[in-house]
């Protein structure tokens, strides 16, 4: 078989070459479209983001300046004085709202026959809880103990304990009982 190409202008597949060039040209067109689109979109996005950032920065500066000017109008000493006065007023209102009638009602239902209350003083703690200190007279320690147990059992008090106890010459027990009052 003769393998040598004797033609002066050997044949090659021109259609394939044209197709390849057309394909590369198409890729170039697609790339051009992609680049142009990206440039347009990214430029718009950049401009939009920069605009929003600048607006936000400007607004933040204005708000900070406004906040600073508001704070300047507040005299710290005056604010402290008002806060102190408000705290004092709240404590007083809390004391005024304390119901002695309710406390007496609840004590009456828990007091054993042989125990008598001689003194009472509520104390409002910093957390708003009310501690009641009571002077109590009874004949026997058992009665005092029953009284304290009753106070906790009916839900009127918590953490009840006898802070101090003394005997009197006539054989009575004098105790100072303290407990956290749980108003209704």
């Amino acid at each position, binding site marked *: 078989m003769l393998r040598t190409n004797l033609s002066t202008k050997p044949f090659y597949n021109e259609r394939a070459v044209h197709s390849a*060039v057309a394909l590369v040209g198409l890729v170039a067109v697609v790339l051009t479209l992609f*680049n142009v689109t990206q440039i347009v979109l990214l430029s718009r996005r950049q401009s939009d983001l920069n605009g929003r950032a600048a607006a936000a920065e400007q607004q933040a500066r204005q708000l900070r300046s406004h906040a600073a000017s508001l704070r300047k109008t*507040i005299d710290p000493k005056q604010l402290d004085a*008002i806060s102190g006065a408000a705290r004092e007023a709240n404590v007083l209102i809390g004391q005024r709202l304390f119901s*002695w009638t309710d406390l007496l009602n609840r004590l009456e239902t828990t007091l054993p026959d042989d125990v008598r209350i*001689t003194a009472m003083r509520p104390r409002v703690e910093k957390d708003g809880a009310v501690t009641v200190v009571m002077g109590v007279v009874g004949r026997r320690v058992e009665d005092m103990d029953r009284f304290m147990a009753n106070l906790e059992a009916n839900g009127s008090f918590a953490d009840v304990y006898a802070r101090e106890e003394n005997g009197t010459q006539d054989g009575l027990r004098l105790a100072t009982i303290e407990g956290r009052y749980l108003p209704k």
Partner: protein
Amino acid sequence: MIPFKRVFDENRGLVIPVAAALVLNVIAYVAIVYPLGVRVRNAGRREETAASELLAAQRDDQASAAMLQGRDRTDTALKAFYKDVLPNSLASANRITYLRLAQLAEQHHLRYSHRSAEPETNPQGPLTRLRITTVLEGDYQNVRRFIYQLESGPDFIVIDSMTLNQDPEAGAPLQLSLSLSTFYQPEHGA
């Protein structure tokens, strides 16, 4: 074998523009599109930072405004409390604890055996306390009614403590020692 040189020579008019377009696109991507993308990402980060700074500034501004409003509201409420709820002078404080307590005791058949009063200034607060100690005698039910009337009445009187005493001998009245307080804002210059 494809004769590339001949193919190139014969299609130079097509190949060069297409190759140039490809190269230009690559250069455009590297020189323009990619850096632009980086700048957009940076702008996005700047926008996020600015948005969070704006949020912080808004909170700061709201807190300052709330502080100012709170101060004004508290001040108004305090003024109303001092003016409308508390007695406005020592004389007024004395009136509600002297005359009205006596009337209340009489109304509940309690005998008024002792009363003392003393103003007590509070250097840390604007209010002066009028501390009253009073001793009443009567039966337990009347003492209960008296206390109920006192604490449910319109006057701002605080019962600080109470002491109950009863003589062991039969028929002796119950003795109620009350420590009371009322508060007033001293007039300027007082």
